[in-house]
Every structure is written in structure tokens, then in C-alpha cells.
């Protein structure tokens, strides 16, 4: 069986629950089968905001196999949602008998590891990681208006353009990579479009950890070192965690 850590990472919804019925379903549109069980969620370990309200509620788990499960049994379920209708149905990726409090350490570590996974990836892909303070941001390229006024051929535009701005970061320390200057220019997408709204939006005085990349979060080359993923800027309080992940 996969580890609790692996199961937690693979699952979008991890919870403790008590089986109330086997061979049943809470959703009219998802028929009951011998593998479907109705469970009452008693504790949530990992979820998205949309599923965070399910503590105390009945949901349906499509089990890998009904064998080994009994009515009244409490288990940890590692699952992924497969049906969101009049009721919630999740698919078992794994389960283990027991309650959350009996495996708190394992679960805490697993959730933390899952959360660290994304940060670990961004750190691995970063060209340069520094701690420092941002100065006042400014548009990076000549805005479209100025370019047009200068008689330049207006560059192609898209609703999904990043609208590059930049700020000068005064460096406290270089955590990864090589950089000798005391400052570095940091590019960021100022756009609120769906493609970029989650990217860091630098404000003067932002003090933290900067994960600088020469490609954006979609793998495309950028004009200068940039922060484009929500994880590419962390408040300075996160610096110890980041340093630990860099080891």
C-alpha cells in the first residue's frame, strides 16, 4: 500500500469518516453499487475550499472494494471527487482504518509535504532565489500608448497579455544561484486576466523571499527574471521554511 504521504499528495479530499451504509449512495444520479458506501465525515485533513464544509455531512465513497469495510467502522479516506450533483461522490484512492488523531503526526507531515511539493518544484526551477525588499514598481516595457505615439509598430495584444511591470529588489541574501550586485530587477505580470491574476503583484516595501525565473509559469521565456507563480514570492516569515526546502 502507498504511504500516507503519497496518498495525501495524490488526493484532493482526505478525511476521517464513519461508514453508515454499504451498498448505498447519497446521490440520486449516482446509483448505489456494492462498492459504494455512505459515510459521515467526522474530520477533514485536506480539502479545497469548496469541500471544506463537509464535516458532519454524509457523502458517498466509491470504494476500491467493499471487502474489509464494515458499517460503523471509522477510517481515513484518501479520495478524489468524481460526482458533484445532489450529493458528493468521491473515489477511494486509498483508505486505512483508524481515526485522524491516531495518526496526527503522519497526516500533518503528509499535508505539509503535499503543500511543500509545489514550492519544492518552483525552487528547483528558479534561476535565482533571494531575500530582499522591493522598491516602487513601474511599467517594464514602453506601454502600448507610448509605443504607438512613438510611431512604433504596436506589438501584438491579447486579452491574456501579462502587462509586465518591474521593481528593484534590494537584496538581503542570495539563497540560491549566483548574484553579486546588491539589487536585482524583478519582473511581474501586472495583468488581472485569468492567466495572470494569481501572480505576485509587487508593492513597494514587500519584504520576502523571491524565486526568480527566466521562464513564466507556463514555460515561456520572459524578458527578465520574473515572478509569475503564486509561490514565487513568500513573506519573510517563510524564509526558514524555504531555506530548509533548498537544503
Amino acid at each position: 500500500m502507498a504511504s500516507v504521504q503519497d496518498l495525501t499528495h495524490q488526493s484532493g479530499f482526505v478525511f476521517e469518516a464513519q461508514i453508515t451504509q454499504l451498498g448505498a449512495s447519497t446521490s440520486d444520479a449516482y446509483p448505489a453499487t456494492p462498492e459504494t458506501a455512505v459515510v459521515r465525515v467526522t474530520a477533514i485533513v485536506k480539502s479545497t475550499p469548496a469541500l471544506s464544509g463537509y464535516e458532519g455531512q454524509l457523502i458517498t465513497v466509491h470504494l476500491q472494494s467493499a471487502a474489509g469495510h464494515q458499517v460503523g467502522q471509522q477510517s481515513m479516506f484518501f479520495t478524489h471527487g468524481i460526482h458533484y450533483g445532489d450529493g458528493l461522490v468521491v473515489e477511494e484512492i486509498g483508505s486505512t482504518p483508524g481515526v485522524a488523531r491516531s495518526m496526527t503526526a503522519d497526516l500533518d507531515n503528509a499535508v505539509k509535504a503535499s503543500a511543500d511539493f509545489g514550492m519544492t518544484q518552483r525552487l528547483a526551477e528558479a534561476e535565482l532565489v533571494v531575500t530582499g525588499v522591493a522598491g516602487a514598481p513601474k511599467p517594464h516595457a514602453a506601454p502600448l500608448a507610448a509605443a504607438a505615439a512613438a510611431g512604433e509598430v504596436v506589438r501584438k495584444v491579447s486579452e491574456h497579455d501579462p502587462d509586465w511591470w518591474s521593481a528593484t529588489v534590494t537584496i538581503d541574501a542570495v539563497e540560491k544561484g549566483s548574484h553579486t550586485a546588491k539589487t536585482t530587477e524583478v519582473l511581474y505580470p501586472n495583468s488581472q486576466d485569468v492567466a495572470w491574476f494569481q501572480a505576485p503583484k509587487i508593492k513597494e516595501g514587500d519584504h520576502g523571499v523571491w524565486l526568480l525565473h527566466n521562464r513564466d509559469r507556463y514555460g515561456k521565456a520572459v524578458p527578465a527574471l520574473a515572478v509569475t507563480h503564486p509561490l514565487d514570492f513568500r513573506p519573510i516569515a517563510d524564509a526558514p521554511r524555504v531555506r530548509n526546502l533548498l537544503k
Partner: protein
Amino acid sequence: MPVTVVNMIPKALSGETNQDSEPNLAINPNNTKQIVGTAFTPNPSGGSLAPIFVSSDGGQTWVLNAIVPGASSSFPTFDITMKFGGTSNTLYGGIIRADNTNMAILRTKNYLSNTPMTVLLNRAPSGGSIDDQPWIQATTATSVSGSPDRVYVGSNDQLTSPKSAHMDQSLSAATAAPPAGFTAAGIGLASRSPAGGQNGPSIRQTIHSSGRIYVAYFNWTAFSSASNITSDVVVCRDDNWGQGGSPYTALVDPGDSKAGMRVVKGVTIPWRNSHFIGQERVGSHLAIAVDPTNSNTVYLAWCDSPGGTGPYTIHLRKSTNSGVTWSADIRTVANGINPGLAVNSSGHVGFLYQTLTTNGTKWETHIEISNNGFSTAPTPIVLAKVPSATPVASFLPYLGDYIYLTAVGTTFYGIFSANNTPDNANFPNGVKYQRNANFTTHQLLNVNNVTPVAVSIDPFFFSVTEGITIQPIQTISPIHVVAPIQTITPIHTIVPIQTIAPVHSIGPIEPIDPIEPVEPAKPQKPKK
């Protein structure tokens, strides 16, 4: 007319607070109970598949089904549209992937299955600029041998910049292995090199069952220092499914002898990728629909700023001669966005739009249905009238760069996004919620039906069913005067039948005296 409005968020997601904007809709013409909706709705469990909304009961209830590949760790998809083929029950999609910003064309035979959609085409953006608005339309060409599914995906593709109006198409998309008739290059639509650097993001096509296809797009002729676009609104046409060596060139503008009729020239469109009107951005809004009963009749709508200073306005126009000439505006809507157009099987035209009203405090979603080609202005049906300032936008687009309207038979179907406050006053023609909501306290509630949930933007499905229109009995044209019957030449006088002389009376038969019996001759002795 019966109007149905349904909030599409399922009960299982009563706790969600996402900005589910930019909706699109697909009705299965083969079975109108089967409907698919899309929006910027994340997978509630995360993962690499984005969800679609699916209904099997004509839109009364909805379920989320995560089958669209290309989700990132933090967002489902970017632009997404979906359509069913005509009779094949196959669902097709055009998306901008959230994981790598590639444009992808997708297919599934079973929209209810958990199996991820098949990727038919996957194309990276060129020049570092993400493509815009893959817009899909599909049909089954029943007049063609084999009844193939024909699928058309318009997009603004920098691959062919500056002539960026682009069409990817397959003449038989239902069953072949990827790319199933799509080509890597697709077709460039624009005949004019846009001096403004590119065509606008919106490419819109409408298909007639005869194989006639109209496509509308913006030809940007300038892009000013104030980020105002000067643009032509162009309609091109193909009369044979987009086939042949010079597709989409059937309409030639006599003004410059180039393919694509410039319906209007030199309109001003503000390009504002910011909160310009009611927290929404503007810059490219376009819709087109052909009359299924008459391929010569086509309706077109777009948005611009009249005179360069007027409010952002929707214009609606019509052609009755296959796009050669166009009417003046038959409708305008100031402070309007997101036009949608459809013509039903009675030739009645539906016009959907969203408009900012009440001193900018309300977003209203209207549909107008005209049975006379907008010769007279129909009364708008108000589908929603909701606050414009709440919730605060998380991203752009706030409501969407588009909404959608279509028609199957005489029924109009559509989708829009709006503030989801459960208040019957916000929905003058009624609304049905699946997610937990208290319409007395106007409070959304979580799955426990107790914990309050913040207001957000939800997708709403609607349908408007036209009644059977009894046409007034036409005045019967007077019967043409019947020529009098010719005098018949009289038959020659028939000589009267001669009197037949009576048969003499036959007297009674006289009794016949009985014949005296004759004694038999005595035999004589023979002489010796």
C-alpha cells in the same frame, strides 16, 4: 413564453465561492435533454482535469464532470467553448489550456463519462502571445454522404499574425483518430493586413445546414496611443463547408475587392483590459447567427463606442441577401456587452445581452425575441437584474468576454454569469437554485444548510420556449372569374321514336282437332 432560469451550481458545491464567469453552452440537437455548460469553474478536488457542467434533463439539474485536460494546479482552463455535433451525440471543445496556454481541440463520445476528453489538436502559442477565444461550432452534414460531423473553431491566433483571424476546421471529426481532420496550420480568414497589428480577439462563425458558413471578425486598422482601436467589422462567407482552395472568400467587398464584407468601417473600440464598465473589461464583443430557414438571412452584433466618445454600445444589424448588403442598426443597447444571437426554426431571432443600468449599480441580462426581424422592438425579457459592485472581481473577465445563445426547434437556450444572491427580485422571470439558499434572508448556505456562504458569480442556464404561433388566416385572394361555360352545340334533334304498330292481337290458339288415329297398314302378302 415560458422562461426557465436555473443556477447551475450543484447542491454538493453549496460552499463554493468561485467567480464562475465566461460561460458557454452546448445543446445536443439529437436529444435536447442533454446539455453541457462551461465556465471558469475549478475542479473541486483539484487535479489536472477541469470540469464541465452536465445535464440529462434539459437543464433542470446539473452535475459537475471533470473531463477537460489541461488544468493547472491553480486554475481549470482559460477560454473554453463546447458544442455537440448535429446527430452524432459527440461533444467537441475548444480551449486555451491553463497548464501551458496551448490551444486545444477536444472530443468525447460520452459527455457523462469520467474518461478525459480526447485531444484532437494541441497547438502552442507563437510569438509569446497567448491566443484568444477559441470559438467552436459543430454540426452533422446530413446532406453529405456519410453524414460527417463538421467542426469549426475560430480563434485569434498569433501564428498567422498580423492576419490573426483564424479557423481550424475538420470536415469529419467524429470518429477518426487525432487530429481527426484538423490540420496544424488551419486557415487564415483575413484578406486585409490589419494596420492595427492584428485582428480582434473575437472570431464568430455560424453554420447553415446547406453548408453555408458566415464568419465575423474585427479588422483593426489602427491602435491609438490612448489604446483605442479603429476597426472594421467584417463578415466573410463560404458556401460549401469551408472547403476548396479559397475558403471563406464568397463575399467580396466592392470597396477594395477583397474577401470579407466590411459591414461597418472605422468604428472606435476602447481596448481596456481593466475594470471599465461595472467591473468588466471591454475591447472585443461580437456575435452572428444565420436563419436556419433561409441561409440568405443573417444577423450580426458587435460593440463599439459611437463617435469614439459614446458609451460602449451593442449594435445589431441584418442582411437578407447573404451578407452583400446590411441594414442600418435595427437595435442598439448602450452600456451593453456580451451580445448573443440565435434564430429558431420559425425564423424568429433571439438577441441576448448584458447591460449596466440603474446608474451603474445593476447588471441586467436580457433576451429579446423578434418574430419580424426587429421591424418592431420586442419587449425585453429580463432574466436577471443583479448588483454590479458585489462581489468584488477576483480576475478579469468579471462576467465573461462572452455569454451564449442558441436555438433548437422553436426553443431558445442560453447561459450567462451573474451575482448569485438568492433574491427573487433579482430574477423577474423566476429562478431555480440547486445549491442551498434562503430566499427569505437572501443568504447562500453551505452544505450543512446553516453556515452562510459569501456571494459570488455563478453560471445560469435559461430556456425560452415560444408558443405555437397561429398565423392569422391569410385573406383568400378572390377566385379568378371563371369563364362562362361555352354554349354547347345542341344535339341534333332526335327524331322521335316511331310509334310501333301494335302487334296484332294473337287470338287464342284454336284447339287443334285431334288427328284421327291411322290404322297401321296391314302387311300385304308379297306377290309371287
